[in-house]
């Protein structure tokens, strides 16, 4: 019988141990983990609060120190150093502001597990703020852009230029029309100014790209001066592809883009590759293809920012300019080896960047691993293949953008992109040559005039597949366009009429290789006299414009080339300094009214209750003054005591004035022994001067003086009594002597003044 019992006990023990272990594993351990997490959470919160509070204090202290340095440098005329310290103050204030935010919002929100809430404030908000456009109008030092009205601004890129949206005036529009560029409603002006922080190398680089951009008709206008360079492009509305990508992934399922979104993305890439192919066939290499430089409007993607545009056949040495992750590392290696541009196929680097863009859009991330980057989100195998092929080694990638475009088109045209195998792609089937030629033939019919598809961005065609719609007809040399003909009706007044007739060939547009040269139109010429007059008028107008430009810019050019002007940090420092000065003056310099002075002095001593004498501790207790029978009576204090006063006299005077103030009287005039040059008591000094004038040369203790003063008091509504303090005139007493003259305000007032005078002189007598 013992056997089964022992067995049961053993079994029970085993079960108990197992249960205990399970209890420990699944209850106790998680519980302790939870407690540990909670404790850690609390300590993280407290630690964060303390850390940021200390950082805030440190930032404030540092800012104050910097403020003194700013002031010191301003005083000694070191403006650059002052600006430097001003920027440091800006940094400290920014750090302090961030600390305040974290102390008040960030840490408490995290403590309450509201991480998602603060993520928006801490990540998205700064990103959006950083990407905000600059000032809507160029600074005064930058100057205006003649012929354009600035209507807004765009966020600047990494090139250092400022971007303004502008509308050309009628004259400029007419000039564009003469060049064969129509429908220019708004333009983007990219401006580089030495006054706005642009550097000379940036200006040189951008102006170098200008020649290339002009070939494609991307630049409408430009101007180069010793301190400024700008060029004008068409305005392409829309959002950058990087932002569109974020929005797409925000709406997409967690595993990646949906089929419809993939279709949309492939459409954008189709637009991009079509544009790149036209660039390359135009002999140019964009060199900075990235999502931020691709503007999506409607169903089209437009490539912008040609600051790095380079002729493929250029004899210059390769440079490493570009954007990391979208720039082929092989380009950097070649540049380091000193390879010339014409020795490589620059188009292939744009193809690499296009592959990187496709990766970034599908993956919502940068291809940080270069050609080895792996797409981890939902993506057709054929698209992965296209990305790999585009980002493959220089010799193995797509030879042209057109070849890649064929593959992208093939996948996008498929009903189910996931069903497309890489082996089915045109480039794998060996049809790329034919396809490329087909694309070329198709594109040959189109000419690159004006900005890249900007006009059809305004009129998207919804019935066309995204990205694969052939660009709308651009103005070409083969097309006959009507130029408005101006007919002068009155030569004296300058009146004229515009009649749309006379088709002419556009100037400055490239001529298609196979297009037949149009017959030169017959232009009806004006009489020689009229032509001469018109030419003179144009020359005169051009001269006056040039004179205005030169006259307007001359002072600016003579200004300092190095921008060391006042920055917000300097302004903050100066403001703080002024605030401290004003506070110091209010506290220590400006004496204010005598009542305030006495109040300050009396409060410094141990003041008593109303009606009792606030006598300093060293003086014997004295009888208190009875309250004044006149409410708000005004006593003008006039002192003949010569400063400096000894401590005892000063103490007794304070006691007297304090006692008078405590009876409800308003004391006016300068406090004996105080500085008397403050504007605050100018009116009281005028009163004192008036009473002195009224007294004249009569001795103060004479009846004439008393009569004169009382007469003055009777006539003056600004004082009810005059307390005249004089030095003792004989050796019988020590300390000043007080005399009190009162206006006729009734018997009570006169009686009170006599008793008050006795008390006052008792206090003043040692």
């Amino acid at each position, binding site marked *: 019988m013992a056997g089964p019992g022992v067995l049961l006990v053993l079994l029970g023990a085993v079960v108990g141990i197992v249960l205990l272990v399970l209890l420990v594993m699944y209850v106790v351990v998680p519980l302790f983990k939870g407690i540990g997490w909670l404790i850690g959470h609390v300590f993280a919160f407290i630690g964060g609060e303390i850390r940021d509070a200390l950082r805030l204090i440190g930032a404030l202290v540092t800012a104050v120190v910097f403020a003194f340095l700013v002031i010191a440098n301003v005083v000694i005329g070191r403006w650059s150093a002052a600006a430097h310290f001003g920027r440091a103050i800006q940094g400290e204030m920014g750090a302090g502001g961030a600390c305040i935010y974290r102390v008040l919002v960030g840490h408490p929100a995290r403590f309450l597990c509201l991480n998602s809430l603060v993520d928006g404030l801490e990540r998205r908000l700064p990103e959006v703020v950083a990407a905000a456009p600059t000032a809507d109008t160029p600074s005064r030092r930058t100057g205006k852009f003649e012929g354009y009205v600035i209507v807004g601004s765009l966020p600047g890129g990494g090139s250092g230029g400022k971007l303004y949206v502008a509308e050309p005036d009628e004259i400029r529009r007419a000039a564009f029309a003469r060049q064969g560029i129509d429908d220019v409603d708004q333009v983007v002006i990219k401006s580089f100014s030495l006054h706005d922080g642009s550097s000379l190398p940036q200006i040189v680089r951008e102006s170098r790209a200008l020649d290339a951009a002009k070939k494609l008709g991307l630049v409408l206008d430009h101007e180069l001066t010793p301190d400024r360079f700008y060029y004008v492009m068409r305005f392409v509305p829309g959002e950058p592809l990087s932002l569109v990508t974020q929005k797409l992934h925000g709406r997409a399922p967690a595993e990646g883009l949906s089929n419809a979104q993939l279709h949309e993305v492939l459409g954008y890439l189709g637009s991009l590759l079509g544009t790149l192919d036209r660039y390359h066939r135009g002999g140019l290499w964009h060199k900075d293809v990235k999502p931020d430089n691709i503007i999506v409007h409607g169903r089209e993607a437009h490539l912008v920012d040609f600051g790095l545009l380079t002729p493929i056949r250029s004899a210059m040495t390769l440079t490493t300019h570009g954007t990391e992750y979208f720039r082929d*590392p092989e380009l950097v290696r070649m540049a380091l080896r000193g390879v010339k541009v014409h020795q490589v196929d620059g188009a292939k680097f744009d193809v690499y960047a296009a592959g990187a863009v496709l990766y970034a859009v599908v993956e919502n991330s*940068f291809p*940080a*691993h270069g050609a*080895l980057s792996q797409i981890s989100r939902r993506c057709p195998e054929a698209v992965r293949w296209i990305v*790999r092929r585009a980002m*493959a080694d220089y010799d193995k990638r797509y030879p042209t953008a057109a070849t890649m475009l064929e593959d992208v088109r093939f996948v996008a045209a498929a009903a189910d992109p996931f069903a497309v195998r890489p082996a089915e792609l045109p480039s794998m089937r060996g049809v790329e040559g034919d396809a490329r030629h087909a694309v070329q033939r198709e594109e040959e019919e189109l000419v690159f005039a004006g900005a890249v598809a900007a006009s059809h961005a305004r009129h998207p065609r919804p019935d066309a597949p995204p990205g694969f719609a052939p660009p709308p007809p651009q103005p070409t040399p083969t097309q006959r366009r009507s130029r408005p003909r101006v007919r002068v009706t009155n030569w004296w007044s300058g009146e004229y009429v515009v009649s749309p007739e006379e088709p002419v060939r556009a100037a400055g547009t490239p001529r298609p290789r196979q297009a037949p040269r149009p017959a030169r139109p017959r232009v009806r010429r004006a009489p020689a006299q009229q032509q001469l007059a018109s030419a003179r008028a144009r020359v005169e107008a051009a001269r006056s414009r040039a004179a205005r430009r030169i006259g307007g810019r001359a002072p600016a050019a003579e200004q300092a080339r190095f921008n060391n002007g006042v920055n917000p940090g300097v302004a903050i420092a100066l403001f703080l300094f002024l605030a401290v000065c004003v506070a110091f003056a209010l506290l220590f310099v400006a004496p204010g009214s005598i009542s305030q002075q006495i109040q300050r002095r009396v409060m410094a001593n141990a003041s008593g209750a109303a009606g009792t004498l606030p006598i300093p501790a060293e003086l014997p207790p004295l009888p208190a003054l009875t309250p004044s029978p006149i409410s708000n009576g005004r006593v003008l204090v006039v002192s003949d005591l010569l400063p400096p006063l000894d401590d005892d006299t000063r103490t007794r005077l304070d006691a007297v004035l304090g006692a008078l103030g405590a009876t409800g009287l308003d004391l006016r005039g300068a406090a004996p022994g105080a500085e008397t040059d403050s504007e605050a008591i100018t009116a009281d000094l005028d009163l004192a001067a008036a009473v002195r004038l009224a007294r004249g040369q009569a001795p103060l203790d004479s009846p004439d003086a008393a009569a004169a003063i009382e007469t003055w008091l009777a006539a003056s509504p600004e004082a009810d009594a005059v307390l005249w303090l004089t030095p003792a005139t004989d050796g019988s007493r020590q300390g000043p002597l007080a005399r009190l003259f009162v206006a006729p305000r009734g018997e009570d007032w006169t009686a009170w003044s006599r008793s008050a005078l006795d008390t006052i002189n008792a206090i003043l007598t040692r």
Partner: protein
Amino acid sequence: MLSSMTTSFIARLRANDQAAWFELWETFGPVVRAQLTRWGGGRIGHETVRDLSQETLAALSDSIDRYDPARGARFSTWLLAIAKHVLGDEMDRRMAMKRGGGRTAASLDEAWMAGSSAIGADDAYEAAVFGAKVEAAIRQVQKECDFTDFSIYRMRVLDGTSGKDVAVAIGVSEPTVSRRLAKVRDALRRRIAEAVETYSFTEAERAEPRRNGLDLDPNKADDALFDEAVAEIYHRQMDLRRMDEQAAR
């Protein structure tokens, strides 16, 4: 004792061969950045980390002439010590700026030549350095192999696609897939051996492939294990790069 490849590479660096320096930057830049970020502990921003990692290589350029192979330091330690020196220099500079003074010149600590324990290298760092060598080898193979061959290897090994699916996707037979895989694998073995030789100063470093499941002898190797080890290292390096990229955003 340094191998001839290491000596040759150091000679290129000493000769200020820009391509060699870029190669070093490309290969070990992410590792140095990750280590500097870890050391910085949030006190230094990503941009500063990038600057410091470049300064690390610049300091490497200055110190390479003083390299003494007889002291027996590892390549990874060498790299780490320079990074630490640059970081310490940056911290000194910041402190000096806070005190209102100029930049204080810190002397380059040559203690790295003695060994790695004092520098603070840990297993994660050593694994990252080794991973960077394997990644460099993969890149090299990608350059020299046919695009389709490497794509097959990539799909099969790095992406984990089955051989049959790879064959269907590429439009070739499965034996062809196996044959091309073997071709790329052999090339990868050679390149890993070269990379390890080039970027290793000690015998312990040269033995790292075997310890990490990468047997470089094709006659004795287990191909599946080799592929698995390569894939694991590849994904680890990709995570490292992804963190680097996220920090940059």
